[in-house]
């Protein structure tokens, strides 16, 4: 009787297993770079062509391999990193399952060159789909260079399912950035299609690496730190004002490995509950060190996830760390823009009150809990030419209150300016058919954009140029803003453009439906984009305004008349609190 079930050939087995490990180019990069780190490299260079479909090169200056070691390394289940089952439970290195090189070799053409310290000659091994093609000597300094070409050449289906080069590279980039945060002492250089994506120097401190890699200012973050008998957490968490609409810059490292974990996600969400408005996500980098026996690593074939033996330990620690950091006061020092300033010295155990100049609330400790409270009156912003006024002031760093005989007029500063700018933009847009008149910046503003951000900008370039923006693009992912519309020229251009791109990317339809309104002569898409721009350019909640500025805003919006009654989101720009209303509220009428 012939059997219908057959034993799979070794080749096929290899390929199936390879599929588990090598899902896409980013997996290749991950495996190879982890090997480099394990080899003790101080510098890792990664070169990618066409998102990894054509070629991936990973070069390091680590220990290298002898010719014999090289041969073995490419065989399945061969590794230098574990010997016994016990080793499995106390994993200190990254690669351990003995699959990486062999898996990659099974689905690509791979060329490995390596040399150990002090060797005159290196060894070169060429494999194609797991078959050794040649092994010979070559020129190579101490370290290893691995070239992976034609990924999935023998798995056409999987090859077809790869996303665009830009998208695949984005994944690679994100992973390398994340990994670089865990190893600040190692230098990382990443290039895509001959363009340099970034170059992090070796030997950095953790702070500097976070700053360099994430391109953030640590002024917008608070350091988090907690230590219990089982674990230790260090890192940074963002303040509200840099929360993003998309999940960006959220990194978790468990014992120096970049991983995902649901417990920690949940803990972060819990920690920011009540602070973050809906739809916004905080940024954070959490470095968690925990005893090896409290984690289970062998969970995921690509080692991307991890499970905790006692999740609640981790959950509580993360929540506490973040919450206490947000309410702990930071030293002001010589930071150009102090983000949190000390209001009152915290007494021995009770209240530490912190007021953030940018946040419009503070954290107050009550018992063992943190509760946020909102101050009402804040000092007005300071302008040298200001004449002190007693009929106009700012409260909550958000509302402009104008005192009239008949009562109060209260304006939402952001809504007001947003509306004003939108009207101006619409005007400019209509007037200019192609390139609008803009104010040339004396020094172009430089912006580092990711590939996807750059794509959006290029798409929107025509639109923005109509308003008066001018851009120039350099070869290495840098964009220069050379001119801006006159009415936004003294603002933070970078923030405006980044925010605008963010909105376009997340296609937030928060200005949707009827409230978008209708403008004759402008298509819906452009109108949407104009509202994004107006919103991003307008003064934000939390910014201090001088008397002169407040008067100017009130003036402008009043001149708009009916048009100025509501902002593009559909919310009102102004409310009246007249004597009549007060009488009613006090139940006198």
């Amino acid at each position: 009787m012939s059997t219908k079930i057959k034993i799979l050939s070794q080749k096929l087995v290899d390929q199936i297993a390879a599929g588990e490990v090598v899902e896409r180019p980013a997996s290749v990069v991950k495996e190879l770079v982890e090997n480099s780190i394990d080899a003790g490299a101080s510098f890792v260079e990664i070169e990618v062509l066409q998102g990894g479909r054509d070629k991936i090169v990973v070069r390091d200056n680590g220990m290298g391999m002898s010719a014999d070691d090289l041969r073995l390394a490419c065989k399945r289940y061969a590794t230098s990193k574990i010997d016994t089952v016990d080793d499995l439970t106390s994993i200190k290195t990254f690669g351990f399952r003995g699959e990486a090189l062999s898996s990659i070799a099974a689905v690509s053409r791979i060329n490995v060159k390596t040399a150990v310290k002090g060797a005159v000659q290196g060894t070169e091994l060429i494999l194609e789909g797991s078959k050794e093609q040649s092994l010979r000597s070559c020129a190579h300094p101490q370290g290893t260079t691995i070239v992976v070409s034609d990924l999935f050449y023998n798995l056409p289906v999987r090859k077809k399912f790869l996303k665009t080069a830009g998208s695949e590279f984005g994944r690679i980039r994100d992973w390398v950035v994340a990994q670089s945060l865990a190893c600040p002492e190692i230098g990382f250089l990443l290039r895509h299609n001959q363009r340099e994506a970034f170059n992090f120097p070796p030997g950095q401190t953790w702070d500097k690496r976070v700053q360099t890699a994430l391109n953030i200012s640590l002024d917008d973050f608070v350091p988090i730190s907690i230590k219990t008998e089982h674990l230790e957490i260090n890192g940074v968490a963002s303040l509200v004002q840099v929360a993003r609409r998309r999940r960006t810059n959220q990194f978790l490292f468990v014992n120096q490995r970049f991983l995902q974990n649901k417990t920690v996600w949940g803990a972060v969400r819990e920690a920011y509950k009540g602070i973050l408005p809906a739809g916004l996500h905080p940024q954070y980098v959490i470095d968690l060190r925990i005893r090896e026996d409290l984690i289970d690593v062998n969970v995921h074939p690509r080692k991307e996830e991890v499970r905790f033996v006692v999740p609640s330990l981790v959950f509580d620690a993360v929540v506490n760390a973040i919450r206490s950091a947000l309410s702990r006061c930071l030293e002001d020092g010589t930071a150009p823009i102090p983000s949190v300033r000390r209001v009152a010295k915290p007494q021995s155990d009770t209240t530490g009150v912190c007021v953030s100049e940018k946040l419009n609330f503070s954290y107050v400790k009550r018992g063992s809990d943190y509760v946020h409270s909102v101050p009402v009156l804040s000092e007005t912003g300071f302008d040298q030419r200001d004449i002190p006024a007693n009929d106009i002031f700012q409260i909550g760093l958000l509302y402009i209150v104008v005192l009239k005989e008949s009562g109060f007029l209260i304006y939402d500063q952001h809504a007001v300016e947003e509306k004003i700018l939108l009207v101006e933009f619409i005007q400019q847009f209509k007037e200019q058919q192609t390139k609008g008149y803009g104010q040339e910046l004396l020094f172009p503003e430089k912006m580092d954009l990711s590939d996807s951000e750059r794509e959006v900008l290029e798409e929107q370039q025509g639109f923005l140029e109509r308003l008066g923006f001018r851009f120039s693009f350099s070869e290495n992912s840098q964009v220069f803003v050379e001119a801006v519309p006159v009415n936004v020229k003294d603002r933070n251009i970078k923030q405006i453009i980044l925010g605008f791109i963010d909105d376009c990317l997340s296609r937030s339809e928060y200005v949707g439906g009827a409230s978008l309104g209708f403008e004759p002569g402008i298509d819906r898409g452009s109108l949407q984009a104009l509202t994004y721009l107006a919103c991003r350019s307008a003064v934000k909640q939390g910014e201090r305004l001088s008397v002169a500025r407040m008067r100017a805003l009130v003036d402008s919006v009043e001149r708009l008349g009916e048009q100025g009654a509501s902002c593009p989101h559909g919310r009102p720009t102004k409310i009246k609190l007249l004597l009549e209303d007060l009488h009613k509220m006090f139940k006198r009428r």
Partner: protein
Amino acid sequence: MAKVLDDLNFKTPMMQQYLDIKKQYPDCILLFRLGDFYEMFLGDAKIGSEVLGITLTSRSRGQDGRIPMCGVPYHAIDAYLGKLTKAGHKVAICEQMEDACEAKAHRSGGQGVVERDVVRVVTPGTVLDDRNLVQKENNYLLAIEVDKKYLGLAYADLSTGELSIRQVEFRNLEKGLAAEILRIKPVEVISSHGNYNKADVLRALRVVPGVNIFPYDNWESAVRDAHKVLREHFQVKAFGGFGIDPRQNQQALRAAAALLTYLKETQKGPLKHIQKLTPYQSDRVLRLGAATIANLELFSTLRGQQRQGTLIEVLDRTRTAAGGRKIRHWLLQPLRELEDINQRLDAIQVLKGDLTERESVQEMLARVLDIERLISRISVGIANPRDLVGLRVSLENVGKIVLFLESSFPSLIYLLPSGLIEQVEPLRELLVRKIKPEPPVLLTEGGYIADGVSAELDEYRGVLSGSKSWLKDFEEQERKRTGIGSLKVGYNKVFGFYIEVSKSNLNKVPPHYIRKQTLVNAERYIVPELKKGEETALQAEERAKALEKDLFREVLVEILQYIDVAQQIAQRAAELDVFCSLAEVAQRNCYVRPELAKDGELLIRNGRHPVIEQLREEVFVPNDTEMRSGDAQILLITGPNMAGKSTYLRQVALITLLAQMGSFVPADSAKIPIRDQIYTRVGATDNISLGQSTFLVEMMETANILNNCTSRSLVIFDEIGRGTSTFDGMSIAWAVVEYFADNTERSAYTLFATHYHELTVLSQKFRQIQNLQMAVNREGDEIVFLHKVVEGSAWQSYGIEVAKLAGLPRSVVKRAQEVLQRVKHEQKKISVRGIDGAEGKEQISLLE
């Protein structure tokens, strides 16, 4: 041209005026200002039309008949100047010295010509506007004086205010001068007729193609009292303050006097921004022969003269133009004082240590414009309002940098001490006070002097804005008076101000309205009242503009007193920029700090070639280098071509050069003894075009090296004796190697790359010689270049294998192998014993 001019005789006063002026500048293209244009006439017009690509026309000049001419608009003159000077012409700019209306008032009969005079002569070496200058390079004008065996050179960059001199004692005038010309790379050279009559001089000048050579007619009178001329300009009693001994620099000082006089004549000004005379201190500088600069590919590649593939390309990450020029200077003149070098290294170390802070400094530097060139334009009097704003903004940004340094890099504050910033504060304040923040570019437009500077100007401006509101009121008033609600007051260039009334309202138009223009659905009128208002406005505008011009000139003069401190700030900011650039390169390319000593061993661990390692095609294999006077003074390197010998040689030279420049170096570690000269003798491209054979040139350069090097030099020979027959070549090479080994005065650290492996036996005779080879593996039929330097000598030349790799046809390769076997049979044996009777251990075959 002069002769022709003499013959001409024009009847019209204007052409006569032209002729008179032209006679004073026969060797220049004369740009003659006529209204809104600069015109060229006669021969100049033909040249101008050709060079600038503009139409040659002719103008009837009354009794003078038709005269060829062509012109350019006044506001675009800079671009045209550039084209003319690039084509090698001198251009005399002749302006109208007074307004047309003033002239008419002066002379009777209304037939007067406006007074004109040449305000400036622009030559290739005296170009001043940014468009015609290369940002990161100097634009040098060189003056040469030759006398007996001394060559005096003076070179200046008018756009930065630099004036340097060098005196050279020469054995061969042509070589000596050529070397200097290659180093300085001038765009224009002036000298006396006498000097130009020397054939050597002319031949030397051909070395840099495209150099503009002009004889200076006034040379003799300019140099007659050279010292006095210089002392007067610099306001000093003696030259000691500049570090110049006049007795040692006779010819150079004469050249300098001629140069300065020439500059003053052409720019027609005192040139206050040329503030000092800089000598070339040859004992404080690591000398690089002209060949070395080319061979090491510092600024341009040997093949193709490009920038990519050069050392400067790798090193230059400066953000300012002045920084770019300075890093070139430093590369051309590495140091020899240990302390100075270490000071530079310290600065770089500090900046390398903090990536984000350093990047902040660099971002701020990017907001500093070219202060030196701005100052020069101000000094010569051709600056415009935007230039002044650029100066102010740059000074403010330098101030910000100082603040930043104080908090982030306090050890670098010596570069930009706050004292200096305080000194320049009055200048900044002056600029803030007197110039509007966003002025127009052209002086003729007005609107650049700030309010509150001159009561008179403010008054005119008041009148002007008053007129504007008056017009508004007038419009309102007429509307009421006539009852025409749609009545408008408008302005156009032809009629000036007018009242516009639509056709439907024509019946309401009062009788005193004078009709001026009819349109499709409206009529335009004027009234005397309106015209008067217009006149007031226009008059105020004219007066305001004229006043602003004068005020602007005053501001320029006021700025002059700050030239010195502004230039100092520019220089120091440039230095900071260079340090940042070198720190950035050191960090990105993983360089280390070299350890320098006055003398001793040279020790490089895992050294790399700074340019080639960046090419990234194949990973770079590093190598060690060890040199000592005892047993490793001379390294003899053998191995096949393409194995990496040349790269190895050059990387040793480059690492030494970088170290002495004060930069970090590409290696794991480096100990460098300070050298006085670096010589390189590299075969590839020689001046065949100058009619000299490869071998001859090679011998000349070798002679130069052997005669001039010292025990403190570093010498690189890449394949010596190649251009002649094998036996001759090998013999010469042998003798040269012995020379370095034998001669205690010339015991430089020397690296020889050679394919004459016979020379390797010399290591038995001389302890100082060490044999190294490029490791090569043979695997079956193939050879693998390992690029590793190992001890020992290579007997195999692998020539045929390399030829095979290069793609020589199979049949040719096979035949070559056959011939080789045959010749090997008939070997000739030589040995050291055979050569000079000394003890030799091995016998080697010439052709193994």
